[in-house]
């Protein structure tokens, strides 16, 4: 299946998907492992390291969000790419400076189909997800 989307941060990657119903604050992700530690979070206890993270949006101030993503990237535990619904300036800046591909405005059929563990091919530059 081919799904259209729009580029925020450039790049092309293939990878396994992890779907979070809650927005992720990267300050509350363990930098050494990529495991989400925020209490009562939809993906609490799961790792986002090397995955294509599907979530509604980012949350948290620029200081905590950028620092969280930075520490993950330094340990090689950052998500491989991000697919989001609502863009905010803080997350957009974070993804671009950490060079993590990110897209938004994804066709609705993607969300109806995608499941944890699916392997997808994301081409942010051309705005295409292959599922």
């Amino acid at each position, binding site marked *: 299946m081919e799904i259209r989307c729009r580029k925020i941060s450039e790049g092309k990657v293939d990878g396994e998907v992890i779907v979070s119903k809650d927005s992720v604050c990267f300050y509350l992700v363990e930098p050494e492992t990529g495991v989400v530690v925020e209490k009562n979070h939809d993906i609490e206890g799961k790792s986002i390291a090397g995955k294509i993270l599907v979530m509604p949006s980012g949350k948290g101030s620029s200081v905590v969000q950028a620092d969280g993503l*930075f520490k993950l990237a330094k340990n090689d535990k950052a998500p491989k790419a991000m697919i989001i619904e609502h863009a905010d300036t803080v997350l957009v800046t974070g993804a671009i*400076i950490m060079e993590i591909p990110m897209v938004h405005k994804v066709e609705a059929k993607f969300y109806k189909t995608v499941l944890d563990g699916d392997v997808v091919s994301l081409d942010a530059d051309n705005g295409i997800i292959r599922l």
Partner: protein
Amino acid sequence: MDLTRHEKEMLDGKYGKGTAMAMKIQVAIGETFDAEKMVDITRAHVALSAQDADLWFVEKLLTQGAFCKVSPTVNPSIDLDYLNGHLCEIPKAGVDIVTATNEAYKKIGATLTFNCTPYLSQNVPVFGEIIAFSESSATPYVNSVIGARSNRESSQSALCAAVTGKVPLYGLLLDKNRKAEIQVKVEADIQSDFDYQLLGWCYPEKYKGLEVPVFSGIKKRPTPESYMNFGAQLNTSGAISMYHIQGFTPEAPTLEEAFGGKSVKKTITITDEDIDIVRKKLCGEPGKIDFAMFGCPHFTISQVKAVAEILDGKKTAVPLWILTSSSTKELAGRMGFLDIIQRAGGHIIPNTCIDVPPCWYPYYGKAGVTDSPKCAYYYEIRKTNFIIRPLKESVEAAIRGEVIE
């Protein structure tokens, strides 16, 4: 996005790799939010934080030759000499990151104000001015109280704007997005500066949406400190970067003007009971304290004066810290407030933020009192338990060493 020839040249590297990188980030932001073009800014404020990502990003821009076209003011850092002399020997990691951050911002052309309330002095925009301000209390203040125009910039995007002298035209820079969509009927009795801390924390708890709200039912003109507290909490508990107060803020002389033809999407009522719920949830039970901390956001001279009046001729049982700008500290000295506070065992520390790890480590895991919910929230990660009380009660608790009923 429609870029001018000059902007395209910036993007293509004619003005160096650093400027190109800043422009690339801003164009991506603009395209994300469907901005049609870039516009010039005349001011910027960067929420310097002296944390890893902050230093990494400013150094990355710097090594690629970036220099600020519009010199931004910056957030507080740490006064290493003062803390070394009065609290503890700062660990090397703290000294290194603070020194390197300050140096990098100086080199990139920032104005080292080290103060988180630039909108009260040193970087005050006028009505309608297009600017790029990051920092949680600053963005709501410049938009709502002054009527200047800034999006909720991240510290990195604000620094990019300072480098290019431009921002993409979207969001709160446009008339239509500054109009209210949510009406908040304030039935609670809101009077003191502290009441605004609670009201600011309460609203995003009651309504999660990010549309611009207009608060009606406020009877008395809020003080600068009330506005400062209100915005800081609205933007910490939630992510509100603009609000109106009917009859007081410049774009809301009347409800009609605040809505500007938009329909009321939702009406929220905030009662005394709602404020009490926030107070109970947020403020903590009475108990012994190890220290008192004020100045998140940085204290004004009126707040310093209020503390001095309570401390006059007394001694504090625990260390009391007031964080403020160097100019407010100097003024406090000239007015005699500094002497009174120091004689009582208190400190006024300039240029410093409540949370630059590991500089305040002796207080990690301890109990403190503060008048600021934002201060308490950022210390949760340091396992410090803050009891939150109005300023007068907090200072009296510092004299006693304990918060009582």
